[in-house]
């Protein structure tokens, strides 16, 4: 299992060289987005006939930011400094599977190279990773202060008032964000493999023949 340092923008070649189990230290500008953000992106940008005028500027901005970058499933605890700038206080990942209905479309539409979260995702996302050259990167759930330490700067925030602090799009610059590849662009998923092992052991413990 390799240890790889990646910087945004991430090339397709770099992403395709990653295998499940690799440790990745990610640097560059990424964007947080979770439940409200994914629903919004899909309903307002991807599945709607045209983007409303009021949302056009944010759409362009997200397209610019997300191409070759990663979206982070995270609802941070933030603090506003006296000069008005924001800081991340605690920033661990949230459970990703809730975005399964949306993630594949978001990867395809915005050209994401990485999805960061916890718990892994389902077959549609795994397929999208294969088709469009992306990986799922697992952050350590609950390691919020450690991860906040890797967030060096909060550049801006979108939809904070509408979605609330945890659900907003926070645009952040990270340095050496520690991650593990658990779904790669070759169709492998640690989550599927561990699930199969635990299923087998469960059947043994329950005394059911396999």
């Amino acid at each position, binding site marked *: *299992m390799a240890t790889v340092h990646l910087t945004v923008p991430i090339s397709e070649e770099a992403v395709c060289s990653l295998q499940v*189990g690799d*440790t990745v230290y990610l640097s560059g500008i990424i964007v947080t987005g979770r439940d*409200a953000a994914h629903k919004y992106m899909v309903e307002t940008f991807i599945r709607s006939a045209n983007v409303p005028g009021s949302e056009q500027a944010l759409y362009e901005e997200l397209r610019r930011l997300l191409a070759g970058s990663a979206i982070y499933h*995270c*609802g*941070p*605890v*933030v*603090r506003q400094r006296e000069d008005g700038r924001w800081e991340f*206080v*605690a*920033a*661990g990942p*949230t*459970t990703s*599977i809730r975005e399964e209905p949306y993630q594949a479309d978001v990867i395809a539409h915005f050209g994401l190279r990485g999805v960061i979260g*916890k*718990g*892994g995702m389902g077959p549609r996302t795994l397929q999208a990773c294969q088709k469009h050259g992306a990986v799922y990167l*697992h952050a*350590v*759930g*609950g*390691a*919020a*202060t*450690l*991860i*906040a*330490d890797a967030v060096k700067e909060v550049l801006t925030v979108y939809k904070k008032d509408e*979605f*609330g*602090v*945890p*659900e907003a799009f926070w645009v952040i610059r990270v340095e050496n964000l*520690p991650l*593990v590849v*658990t779904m790669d662009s070759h169709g492998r998923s*640690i*989550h599927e*493999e*561990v*699930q199969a*092992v*635990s*299923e087998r*052991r*469960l059947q043994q*413990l*329950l005394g*059911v023949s396999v």
Partner: protein
Amino acid sequence: MDLTEPIVELIRRASTDLPADVEAALRAARDREEAGSAAASTLTAILDNVALARARSQPICQDTGTPIFHIHYPAGTSAGKLRAQAEAAVVEATRRAYLRPNAVDSITGRNSGNNLGIGFPVFHMEEWESDLLEIALLLKGGGSENVSIQYSLPYEPLKAGRDLEGVRRVVLDAVHRAQGEGCAPGILGICIGGDRSTAYTYAKMQLLRPLDDVNPVPELAALEERLLRECNELGVGPMGFGGKTTILGVKIGAAHRLPASFFVTVAYMCWACRRARMEVKNGTVVYP
């Protein structure tokens, strides 16, 4: 006596530090995993994170969860005033970023911004004989709440009948289903019996027990020990990466049930089992 500030301190302690027994269990788990494995490096990151959060007095996890208060108060204390002070403390703890604003209006999707809302935070308040005022607080995150589960026995798919073997079977199933999604290695608070709502309350109360205590009911003590061993044989591992540690502790309680009902309720708690307690006696506040 205004307890607002002492309760802010209780919240700070719960959010920014782990109980010593939980941290010790995580350390023992790290030492059991193979060096260089994803499981070992994950547990190391968790322990580093706990130390950093404690040193900086910052939340261990960004999901500071649902604050669940269990308050026992002596006769003559106003429960209403206590509750108002605890609510004021929650608002202040949110302002100081010990808590993330976590109360979302289920109709509009709006976050109240201060952790107050309908049924939020959660209060269980009871008068007792003692002249001591005791406030226990559990901060329970959403990832672990979402994998918590309630079974109604008999449960045919697992051949789980209305006995302790049936309980064992559904609990193993619950841990398998959860995989890493509840932020494994987790802690299980289990209630056998009760009705659908009290069962979850009792199951979560089990999470207030220290990991190293022994259940006073011998059958339950034996089941706790067996389930801890067997859950770890599932091999889910920290964060679901595979490994020897899936669960850090199993705590089981029983409540009376209707003849017609037999619920087994599993309250899954993430590794960040943030519980804290304070006691007030003769105007003195201690955090034992």
